[in-house]
């Protein structure tokens, strides 16, 4: 069972790292989400694997799982959501300001040149306006 969990975490990490290294914002957000899953499960397993012993105090129960990693992971899940939401909106903002969804906001690949026409005309930024 432990191997199964470890390997699952490994696959999530690998997929997450690969996606995080991509050049477009949306895959990067997906990659970070996968990495967050992997980290959360990893943290959770630090309390070891236990079946049928939730950490709710009950005299009839034989033992308890470790509540501390669970409490940590619970907030981590919510924070990861907050981070994902923030990132994806940042990606939208970047798209709006830069006109494309590249992580560095500079390169427009060949198949995207057609998109330029559908975009509203770019407003000059303040700095450029100051120079002229």
């Amino acid at each position, binding site marked *: 069972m432990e191997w199964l969990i470890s390997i699952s975490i490994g696959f999530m990490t690998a997929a997450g790292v690969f996606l995080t290294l991509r050049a477009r914002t949306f895959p990067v957000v997906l990659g970070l989400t996968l990495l967050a899953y992997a980290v959360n499960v990893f943290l959770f397993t630090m*309390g070891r694997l236990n079946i049928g012993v939730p950490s709710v105090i009950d005299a009839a129960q034989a033992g308890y799982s470790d509540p501390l990693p669970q409490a940590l992971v619970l907030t981590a899940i919510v924070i990861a959501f907050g981070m994902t939401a923030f990132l994806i909106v940042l990606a939208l903002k970047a798209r709006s300001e830069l006109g494309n969804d590249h992580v560095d906001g500079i390169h427009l690949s*060949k198949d995207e040149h057609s998109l330029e026409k559908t975009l509203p005309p770019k407003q000059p930024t303040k700095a450029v306006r100051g120079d002229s």
Partner: protein
Amino acid sequence: MNLLAFNLPIVVLLPFFGAILAAYSGRFNRLAAAYTSGLVALVSLLLLVPAISLPFNGETLIQSWSWVDSIGLFFAFRLDGLALLFALLILIIGLLVIIYARYYLAKKDSMGRFYAYLLMFMGSMLGIVLSENVLQMVIFWELTSITSFLLISYWQHRKDAREGARMALAITGAGGLALLGGVLLLGHIVGSYQLSDILVAGDLIRGHDLYEITLVLVLLGVFTKSAQFPFHFWLPHAMAAPTPVSAYLHSATMVKAGIFLLARFFPVLSGTEMWTWLVGGAGMATLLIGAYTALFKHDLKGLLAYSTISHLGLITLLFGFGTQLAAVAAIFHIINHATFKASLFMVAGIIDHETGTRDMRKLNGLMKYMPHTGVLAIIASLSMAGVPLLNGFLSKEMFFAEAVTASQASIIAWSIPILVTLAGIFSVAYSLRFIHDVFFNGEPVGLTKTPHEPPRFMKIPVDLLVIACLAVGMLPMYTVASILDVAVSGTLQTTSPEYSLAIWHGINLPLIMSFTALLFGALIYFKRESLIRNYDRHDHINAKNYFMSLMDKLIALSILVTRRFDKASLQNSVAWIVFASIVITGYGFFSFDSPLLGDRALMPVDLVTIIVAMLLIVASLMTMIWHRQRLISLVVIGVVGLVIALAFIKFSAPDLALTQISVEVVTIILLLLALYFLPQKSPKETNKNRLWRDAILAIASGVGITLFTMMVLSRDYDPISHYFLSNSVPGGGGTNVVNVILVDFRGFDTLGEIVVLALAGLGIYAMLQGLTLPAPNNDIKGRSWSLDAHPMILQTFTRLMMPLMILVAVYIFLRGHNLPGGGFIAGLIASVALIVMYLSNGIEWTQQRLRIDMHLVIGFGLLIATATGLVAMAMGYPFLTSAFSHIHWPVIGEFEIASAIAFDLGVFLVVVGSTVMSLVQLGKLSTLSHKQQQQYAAKRFNGQENQ
């Protein structure tokens, strides 16, 4: 109330508070700043007075409070003879400089700022000399570097002031870092950072393996601060400071801090061959270079700067001799140098002030314009030259005597008396130049104004200092003897050795050396014309150029390194971060000796789990492989999240499962909303090398984390959760331990987390303000969107479901303390309920019915959570302590109520507010964009028609 229990920290800290007062009062009245500072320095001095008798009785006053005990840092102060001498020098000369500066500063200079800096510097210096804890001393040491930077750069409009200040800060700051290292090693060797412990551990320190490195690090601190060769070059550039600053920093304080440290650690670090060579060598080189260069400086302050370097070298050399008598001479010369050098700097300032120049080629014959100042300058200069009946003579005689003693040590040591006599010769020559070139030697050349005496009070500080020079020089036994004696015993940490302060010791070698120096010094002075011409003809090593080019190279190097690693590309940076993590983890794996896996019994595997895990693995891979088809990869990643929720259920974490499943729903909706505005497909990547590089990084990370997880899971561990499990019911009043940890045991953490969540929500709101994005009219396959935005069946059912979902949220919230649930989960469920309403009925329809500003919800959430903590504080408990009791309600029965539920309500509100706000703002964007798109298309259409 016993003043001796707490006066030292007040003496040190008062100037810092005084600095604020001075800066503030300077705003209303220029002179108020000066009077405030004078008063503050005086009060500090008066507070020190009651303790003065203690060192004279052989007692050391220590006042200590605990601060960060775990690292050996105490808030501790110490007054022994050495500390007393320095504290008096700092305060008394400081007071004189304050009076002097009041007349020196011009109308346009800000007095408030000047005096604020000066007082902060004074406090820092007092902190160094009065510290008992050496870590605390290093803090004050760094403060002197910073405050002296502010003082030197006081005339910020001048380039030389800024450059000089930066150089001083770079060099003394770097030395400060070395000193910190040395002090940490000292503390490591001794096992304590208190001077009382360190000063008695001399043998232990000198015998320790780390002695050499400790000594070098401490000496780096000393040499940089006290401008010893090869770090001496910052001091002349610091002359760009206003003259009162120079008078203070370079006579009694800043540069003497290094000397103080040398004296402080003299009992524990001296007495080895290494000490003699390093300290003596640096001292001798500095003495000679300073004395030689001073003669050729045409600037009054330049001459004094190199003379200061030379005298600091003299004191360092004396400490380098390492004998007790040499230490006596060193301490004596510290006092004498402080008095005559402070007065000479003040004279230089007066001359500058009254004539408008400091160039000795222009200044001549000032004696008849300012006779009073002239007499003061002549006496102080003669003292600097070491003429009998003045204080400089006495300590110089002792210095010569020590040089003669040291010459017997080895065969090459016979050169010491010759070299120091040479330095003495130059010292006489430059002192004569200060007198003759400035006050006699014809008439002034090309002055813009006629010189005259300065205001009476500007001369009073100089008067007092010169009187001290005379009094000590003629009547040493009645003036300086007692404070010298107590300072020496404070330095040596034992009774002072036998020494004589008599003016006349008979005709002996030191006296002959003195007169040789006087004679040849006068000779050299009168031959100065040709010497100076010769000096000016040659190029000289200008350390400033080296320093500047070194700085430029360092900056160029850092730019090079940055460019190499930071190509302004996120992909590149992330690849480096992942690569570095893999390298570090790899090193950890390979240097790990024990077997990879532990011997904890592994759990058996069942078929269902295998199938579900396979689902997760396949879904992860598919997310990755299909990432160019964005909608599909988003659907597949949802599977991963759901499987994880299942895993949480299986492995006894119902709270996590509930959280995960509700977060999953919200996340997917959010990403779907955002995807609407992003390209539906990622472009194909053409760079195969990059794909392979990323694949290798990904596989290495995956394998690494798998092995690492397995290493942990196959070993037993000792959890710290027993406390939480056993105290959850009696202490927190709840049986769901996870929830009790969140809202009670670790409530402060949770408070921080909901603040983060609130900030994320507000950040999203802020970013989406004024954002415009084009919305596509068609989906990826070119089909246009459905016109049926809000299907009837969905609308009807969600309106029916709404109350039910809210009911579930309330139920989950209320039971959270005892059964799986709580504020986080209930908040997410309620958010889902609201978002479904927005989705199925449209934002406008929902907002007409739900007129609550989500900003307020977030705000109230944070307010309630914080207030819960504050109420506990108001009742005298620590922040966020919870209380609970059982209430018997009619009909319902016994009901437990805990204050933690109020906190959980805060959590609930913040989660609902942030989540709903993020999603609704995104949703609004799409409504807005659709309208804009239509307008834009219409405009283009019209534009084409017009053409």
